[in-house]
């Protein structure tokens, strides 16, 4: 059955191939060429990299650095030539081609305010934006990198596209978490997939095999933003259908930079910057009483005062982050040097890039520890003194080779060598930095068991903590080969082959007699060395046939096959018990080793028909079928249909001609896509373990997973409706979109009853149904557009309503004490027994709990209640740009708002519940609410943490940048160069407004679907100077 389905798809593709070859043999008409120049209408300057194409054919080219172009192999006759370039209005003109002759058509393009590219990349190739029934988000990466403080992909993506939630990391080298149009999957990844130059690449979050707490790298941050030309965000199944199984969470399509024909252009750039942690961390309190000493934990809490159990002699507070002697925060430094060369001829265009980056995080050895080390004749190793660091060398080459007027090949290859050091931080308990800073005793001169002063740190200080050395080394190569062959003017064939290869080495080392002494054998030394290879292969082939069915109706038929193969292949080794001086596992007393390998393969085929009526009504219909190695044995093939309509209504003759309206487009798209299960989710199996018997260690087998033979992919369908308009001579652009995404057959990680005795605690079953809906809007406007001054604004926003419609009869899934999946509520919502009210009934200023409701001063609900979304429901980003001094100086700023959600202030919870240093527990001036939530978590039988789940709304001053573009003559005069650009930029200038009382509503790790702030750092503020010199 499965073979038949795929076979049918392949047969269709073969038929198309037959037709193609048939027509190949047909007698070809005489051919000529079209040539010309594209310039800016206002300045007369050449426009490079403009797309020039012959309408109704697959024939086209790019202009060179002088704005010149030549299209060869054009059939003799009358043709419409079209020019597209971001920042300019589309232009068309007619060319009459004579056999063996060159027809000349020049274009003068009118600049417009829009920042959207007129061309978007779809699964079947590039298409004009107006022809596509979806709104596709775009990020002008090259511009963003040149004008803002972009250090990683998270910086590049955050707040630039509606419907895309980006959670940037809070430390150097930390990962980035991306969610598009809400959460769809209860149990599988909600990460989008990433495509670079047509090739699927690894984009997992939490990509580490050693633990340093909540902060982990994400593989998407291996990509260097400097190498990226543009990013397109395919937001949901209605647009992602042809990307197949796994694309339901959206697709992020990345195009790397390409060369522009012309003489070699060399650009050197450097970034020099620093970053600081400007966050306000909470004070630690201590309630002193008779018997309290600097080395014990005897305190007097407010509730004890109220009960008459003790008297607070005094209350002290101390914040080590505010004390220059004690703070671990210093000055982080970032520098980068890069060189780019591009140029070439019509036959060969090239782009080469190489860059060296070095970034040191803000963590340092506190002054008191430095003194201690000096006094004891000790020294930290350099890598320990700066435990948070990123070093990266990246290189990329992009070659566009025109083999003939009908054939071309694009070769793209990139290499990244990267080392990331992350400290034990976030949720690393007693071994972590934050666990020791948040858990301090509320005064400065507390003592360790050995009598050393801890300067307000809880148990351990950086001189011990930083000795746990954790490094992730990445060697990564993303390469692709894209070939185009246009055997006939109406037929084009395209093939892609690519490989994303990653070699990841995670090491963690604690030398003999190093690291925090937590007792036992904690200081005998250990080394972990885990080596993982990731392979992601992509092979695509498509054939597209274009035919003008009538003077007003044009058809484009595309068929294709796609094959992806992902391999995860890991070897893990560790050794415990290192002799002095040893840093190798080989020297360890006890060795362990293991390996892991998983593989996933997908084979898909698709067919798409695109019709264009009078170049104003566009209808696209298609279907994709997939088979995947992870599907259950009883499930064969997934089919995903799509239908999209785009109608440029304003081009209709009946549409009223309004002076202020340039274009009005209505669009609709429906489509389906999926998310595939994990490689072994469908399989029943045993796993191996070891046991120690009387005759020594022996291998053993234990029953692990029940498996599910009926397992199939999650299937998401989406209906997207939208309206786009451009107004006032393209000075105002508006996109408005409504989407409804429904995921059925959602893989529910069905909890297995413990009594079954299976190793796996869950089994994936296709039971659930999840609905996401919302609005997205994008507005760009050029408010003032004069020669010497310009003012533009941008606004993008989105809403998201998420609902778990059905669990398929499964009882509500309790994920933790604070999260549940319940029908009728959003996924990963916050749940707890609610702190309903508090009232100081006896008027003593202290909130108390009593088992007698009549006396108790807090009221807690009897059952867990829904408290709120865990992810923002409303996102809004506002950008402002001012161009002055003949537009050579540009000042830009971005503010963004996220809200409608709650953030679990788990840091304050643990401070109140067990660190015994929060205000609500000790401070007589604490608000009644602070006291109430503390009493609820400490004394109420429910131990409810509901009071710590707080509104997460915030407005952040995200970016501020000032860019100066010097006149060419300056560059020429100063260094005989071509261009000089300098940018001063700042990122994350602070929270302007929030209801959240924790450190920062974005202070959390970058994995998981419902992040909470748990002993995490806040994001630092970056200041960068970037200078770019062109030669």
């Amino acid at each position, binding site marked *: 059955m499965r073979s038949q389905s795929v076979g049918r798809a392949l047969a269709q593709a073969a038929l198309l191939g037959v037709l193609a*070859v048939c027509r190949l043999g047909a007698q070809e008409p005489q051919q000529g060429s079209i040539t010309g120049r594209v310039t800016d209408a206002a300045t007369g300057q050449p426009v490079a990299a403009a797309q020039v194409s012959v309408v109704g054919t697959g024939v086209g080219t790019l202009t060179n650095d002088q704005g010149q172009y030549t299209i060869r192999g054009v059939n003799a006759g009358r043709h419409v030539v079209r020019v597209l370039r971001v920042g300019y209005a589309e232009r068309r003109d007619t060319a009459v081609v004579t056999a063996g002759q060159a027809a000349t058509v020049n274009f003068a393009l009118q600049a417009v305010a829009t920042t959207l590219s007129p061309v978007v990349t779809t699964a079947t190739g590039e298409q004009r934006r107006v022809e596509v029934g979806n709104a596709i988000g775009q990020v002008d990466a090259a511009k963003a990198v040149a004008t803002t403080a972009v250090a990683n992909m998270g910086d590049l993506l955050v707040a630039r596209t509606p419907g895309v939630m980006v959670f940037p990391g809070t430390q150097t080298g930390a990962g980035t978490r991306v969610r598009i149009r809400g959460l769809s999957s209860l149990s599988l990844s909600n990460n989008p997939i990433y495509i670079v130059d047509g090739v699927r690449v690894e984009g997992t979050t939490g990509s580490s095999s050693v633990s340093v707490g909540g902060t982990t790298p994400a593989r998407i941050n291996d990509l260097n933003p400097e190498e990226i030309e543009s990013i397109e965000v395919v937001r949901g199944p209605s647009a992602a259908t042809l990307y197949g199984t796994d694309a339901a969470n959206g697709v992020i399509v990345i195009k790397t930079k390409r060369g522009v024909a012309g003489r070699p252009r060399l650009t050197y750039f450097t970034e020099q910057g620093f970053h600081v942690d400007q966050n306000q961390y909470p004070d630690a309190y201590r309630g002193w009483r008779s018997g309290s000493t600097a080395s014990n934990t005897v305190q007097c809490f407010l509730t004890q005062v109220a009960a008459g159990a003790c008297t607070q002699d005094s209350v002290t507070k101390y914040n080590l982050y505010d004390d220059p002697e004690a703070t671990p925060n210093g000055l982080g430094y970032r520098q980068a040097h890069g060189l780019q060369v591009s140029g070439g001829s019509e036959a060969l265009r090239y782009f080469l890039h190489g860059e060296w980056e070095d970034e040191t995080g803000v963590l340092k050895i506190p002054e008191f520890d430095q003194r201690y080390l000096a006094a004891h004749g000790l020294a930290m190793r350099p890598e320990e003194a700066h435990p948070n660091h990123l070093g990266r060398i990246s290189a990329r080459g992009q070659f566009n080779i025109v083999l003939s007027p009908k054939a071309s090949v694009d070769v793209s290859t990139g290499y990244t060598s990267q080392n990331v050091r992350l400290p034990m931080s976030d949720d690393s308990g007693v071994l972590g930095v934050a666990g020791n800073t948040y858990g301090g005793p509320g005064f400065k001169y507390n003592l360790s068991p050995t009598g050393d002063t801890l300067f307000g740190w809880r148990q351990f200080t950086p001189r011990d903590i930083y000795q746990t050395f954790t490094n992730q080394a990445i060697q990564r190569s993303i390469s692709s080969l894209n070939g185009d062959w246009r055997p006939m003017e109406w037929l084009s064939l395209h093939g892609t082959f690519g490989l994303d290869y990653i070699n990841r080495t995670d090491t963690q080392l604690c030398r003999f007699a190093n690291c925090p002494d937590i007792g036992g054998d904690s200081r005998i030394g250990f080394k972990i060395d885990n080596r993982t290879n990731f392979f992601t292969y992509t092979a695509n082939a498509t054939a597209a046939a274009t035919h003008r069915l009538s003077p007003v109706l044009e058809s484009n038929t595309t068929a294709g096959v796609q094959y992806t193969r992902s391999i995860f292949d890991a070897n893990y080794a560790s050794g415990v018990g290192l002799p002095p001086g040893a840093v190798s596992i080989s020297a360890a007393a006890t060795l362990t080793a293991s390996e892991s390998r998983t593989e996933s393969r997908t084979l898909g085929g698709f067919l798409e028909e695109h019709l264009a009526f009078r170049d104003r009504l566009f209808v696209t219909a298609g279907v994709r079928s997939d088979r995947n190695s992870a599907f259950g044995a009883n499930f064969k093939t997934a089919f995903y249909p799509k239908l999209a309509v785009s109608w440029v209504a304003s081009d209709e003759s009946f549409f009223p001609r309004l002076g202020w309206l340039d274009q009005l487009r209505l669009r609709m798209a429906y489509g389906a896509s999926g998310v595939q299960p994990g490689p072994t989710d469908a399989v029943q199996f*045993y796993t191996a373990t070891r046991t120690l018997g009387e005759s020594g260690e022996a291998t053993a087998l234990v029953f692990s997973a029940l498996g599910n033979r009926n397992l199939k992919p999650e299937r998401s369908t989406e209906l997207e409706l939208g309206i786009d308009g451009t107004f006032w001579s393209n000075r105002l652009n508006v996109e408005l979109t409504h989407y409804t995404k429904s995921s059925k057959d959602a893989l529910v990680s069905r909890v297995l009853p413990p009594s079954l005795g299976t190793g796996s605690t869950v089994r994936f079953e296709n039971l659930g149904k999840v609905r996401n809906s919302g609005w997205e809007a994008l507005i760009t406007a050029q408010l003032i557009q004069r020669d010497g001054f310009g003012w533009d604004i941008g606004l993008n926003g989105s809403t998201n309503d998420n609902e778990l419609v059905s669990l398929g009869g499964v009882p509500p899934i309790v994920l933790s*004490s604070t999260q549940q999946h319940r029908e009728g509520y959003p996924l990963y919502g916050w749940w707890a027994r609610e702190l309903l009210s508090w009232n100081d009934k006896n008027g003593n200023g202290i909130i108390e709990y009593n088992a007698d409701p009549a006396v108790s001063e807090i009221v807690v609900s009897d059952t867990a209640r829904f408290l709120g979304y865990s992810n923002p429901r409303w996102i809004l980003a506002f950008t402002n740009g001012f161009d002055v001094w003949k537009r050579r100086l540009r000042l830009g700023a971005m503010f963004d708002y996220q809200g409608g959600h709650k953030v679990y202030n788990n840091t304050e919870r643990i401070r109140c519940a067990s660190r015994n240093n929060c205000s609500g527990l000790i401070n007589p001036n604490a608000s009644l609410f602070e006291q109430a939530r503390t009493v609820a978590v400490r004394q109420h039988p429910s131990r409810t943490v509901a009071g710590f789940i707080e509104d997460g709304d915030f407005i952040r001053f995200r970016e501020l940048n000032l860019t100066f573009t010097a006149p060419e003559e300056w560059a020429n005069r100063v260094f005989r160069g071509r261009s000089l650009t300098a940018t001063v930029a700042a990122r994350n200038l602070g929270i302007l407004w929030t209801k959240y009382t924790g450190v920062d509503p974005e202070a959390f790790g970058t994995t998981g679907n419902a992040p909470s702030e748990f002993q995490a750092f806040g994001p630092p503020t970056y200041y960068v100077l970037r200078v770019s010199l062109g030669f």
Partner: protein
Amino acid sequence: MIFSMHAALCRPRLRRMLPTLRRAALAAGSLALAACSVSDILQVDTPDIIQPSDVQSAAGADAVRLGAIARLNFATSGGSSDSEGLFLLSGLFADEWNNGDSFIARQEVDERVITPQNNFLTDVDRLLHRARLSGMQAVQLLRQYKPNGPAADLAEMYFVQAYVETLVGEHYCDGLVFSTVQDGVEHYGQPITTQAAFELALAHADSGLALITGSTAADQKVGNALRVLRGRILLDLDRPADAGPAVSGVPTAFQYQNLHSQTTTDNAIWAYNNVARRYSVSTREGGNGLDFATANDPRVPVCTGGDAACRAIGVTRSDRDDNTRPLYVQMIWTTRDAPVAIVNGVEARLIEAESQLRANDPSWLTTLNALRTDGTFDTRPNAQDPTKTDTLWHAGSGGVAGLKPLTDPGTADGRVDLLFRERGFWLFGRGHRVGDLRRLIRQYGRSPETVFPTGDWHKGGQYGTDVNFPIPQAEQNNPNVAGQGCMNRNA
């Protein structure tokens, strides 16, 4: 349907293109060939997993048998990455351990207010049933593929099942469930009472014992383990008259051990108390608790974090994970690989003593004292308060631990108290205490408030009223349980 294709087909030049068509046909054939081997293209290796067919052999059966032993280890004294195992959690619920960390779910257990959602409760329940399932699977596989193998191997798998069923019965409320997976298909169990669980355990213990007909070392080890277990079950079933005889002949020195090592499973008691300091030995917890930490009893040697004795065993911290003090550290298992005797001959004697006491046989005290022996008293200054003096008993040359002989308290309640104190100290940390406290309520008429920790909880608030573990909420996914939980919360 496809307009461009249709248009192409209508072209009149096809005849002239036969050679091209042949090439196209070849290409199409290649594609078709590819389609035929789609299954091959999608075939992947899964080297990390063992297929069910791989255990269908004598060697496979043996590996599953060892897996059952490993899982029993995880479930009790070994723990896992998710859970510390039953022994610790049980002692936390009773009066053996105090909570020393910030996890609310552990605090619930310590405070006797356990919610069914409690993740530690759920995790330990899974560990127990995994061991039981592995034992069942091993029995089936050994009978099928290794019918002539050592009887002790098969009997030991019955021991694993019976032991887990006993632990489950001793700790959980009525309404507990035993499900199975047979031939790869799940079979959900029905809720049963703890009494029914003990009877099931007894049946499995009997099945195991019936297999032991030889006298090899393995036969003796497994046989004795089963005998002691039978005695324990019979006490749980309130059949003391049967329990005593059930364990007769088991040497007092006998031990059935969970073995731990650097590379398999840690001794979880050492890991959670001595290293992570999430647990601290209790003393007189909630008023009713035994003075484990302060009794200076050589059966439960305890040091205080920061003192010389603790430093000598590598415990350098003086506070618990939550920074509170004192940290009391047990010194029975002082290394990662210290073995834990989950069944031993001392327990057999204690069972006999209880059987005798219930029969008003005065030899009960003799039996208890036989475990203790001659020695001398000594005094030394108290480590915390030098103004006080500790009196220590030093073991003599004979007996098991050299403890001071007991004297008859003279009252029925006093005798029961003494017996259960002896059990508490002899069997410390090995999952007996909750069962004992419940038996005190169930069989000896004590009220829960007089046996379980009661009153002010040491971290604020009051102790709850739980006398057993609830059925974990995760069990609601069993269609036979959905909507139900504990039948009752009685002891």
